[in-house]
């Protein structure tokens, strides 16, 4: 599944969730797919969209908050998964689009050449639940996706 396809699937299932987008590919593709002006697009602080989304989710416990993250941003701050897990905000869903490259800055490959299992990292960080989603699995499972999800 291409990154844009994954974003399109998420956009179709968003419902009334408030979206927070990591800078770069996630923000660019979410904007392209949704033209959403009520989403928050990080313009900096790479790696910390997850923390921003957590702060928003804790402040608005009745509002569903979706974090549209990417593997490059996640790897800037893997510790965010521990913080998320510790707070267990049930209204927060963390999506990671793992395209294996730094798409916005030339498409060069990420460290470890795509061998990283982000879902395993999230599980090990004690995230409430984790759902790896591939091309066939993404669409039907999205409405019930838990705290952290991983789309290849």
């Amino acid at each position, binding site marked *: 599944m291409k990154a844009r396809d994954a974003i399109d699937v998420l956009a179709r299932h968003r419902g009334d969730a408030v979206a927070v987008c990591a800078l770069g590919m996630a923000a660019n593709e979410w904007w392209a797919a949704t033209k959403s002006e009520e989403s928050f697009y990080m313009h900096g*602080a790479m790696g910390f969209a997850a923390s*921003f989304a957590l702060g928003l989710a804790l402040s608005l416990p009745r509002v569903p908050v979706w974090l549209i993250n990417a593997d490059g941003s996640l790897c800037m701050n893997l510790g965010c998964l521990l*913080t998320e897990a510790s707070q267990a905000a049930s209204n927060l869903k963390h999506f990671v689009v793992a395209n294996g490259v730094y798409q916005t800055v030339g498409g060069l490959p990420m460290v470890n050449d795509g061998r990283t299992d982000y879902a395993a990292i999230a599980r090990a960080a004690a995230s409430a639940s984790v759902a790896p989603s591939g091309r066939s699995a993404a669409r039907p499972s999205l409405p019930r996706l838990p705290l952290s999800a991983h789309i290849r």
Partner: protein
Amino acid sequence: MDVSARIHQQLTKCGIKIAASLPDDWVAPLIERIAADNQIRHVRVAREAEAIAICSGAFFGGVRSAALMGATGLLTCTGELATLNLRHQIPVFLIVSQRGSIDDHRIYQEVQGRRTLPLLQALDFPYHIVDRPDEVNSIPDAFETCRMQKRPFVLFLTRRLVKGEGTA
């Protein structure tokens, strides 16, 4: 009432409902007081910039917050403070131990002592130094200044304030 209790009392007066922290030993007693307060959601973070971003998200949720850390942690956050908080005009109230002062006597804090204030001045981040217990009452004014200026604001706690007179 000890100084941590007095600071905690002023933060309550400010209406703070979320606090995100990574400890430095000078602010650790304050952090533990806040952690024990069930009226404040305390978030322990793995890196100081997480605290900045959590408070920034809380701002958009309409909830008042504070980030607590040491001066070393503050130095690690300058990129995030510039590209998140300055860019989006998000106020964030930081409570930071002013390490590296002449009474600190820790060689690994020496650079923080010399360069932290010039760095904040270069970024045009306002700050306020609380050095004595009777100055703790200035915290609500500092918090309001942060909200008005919609930018990072650093409240420094000195060694004399948190540890008392005398050297390490």
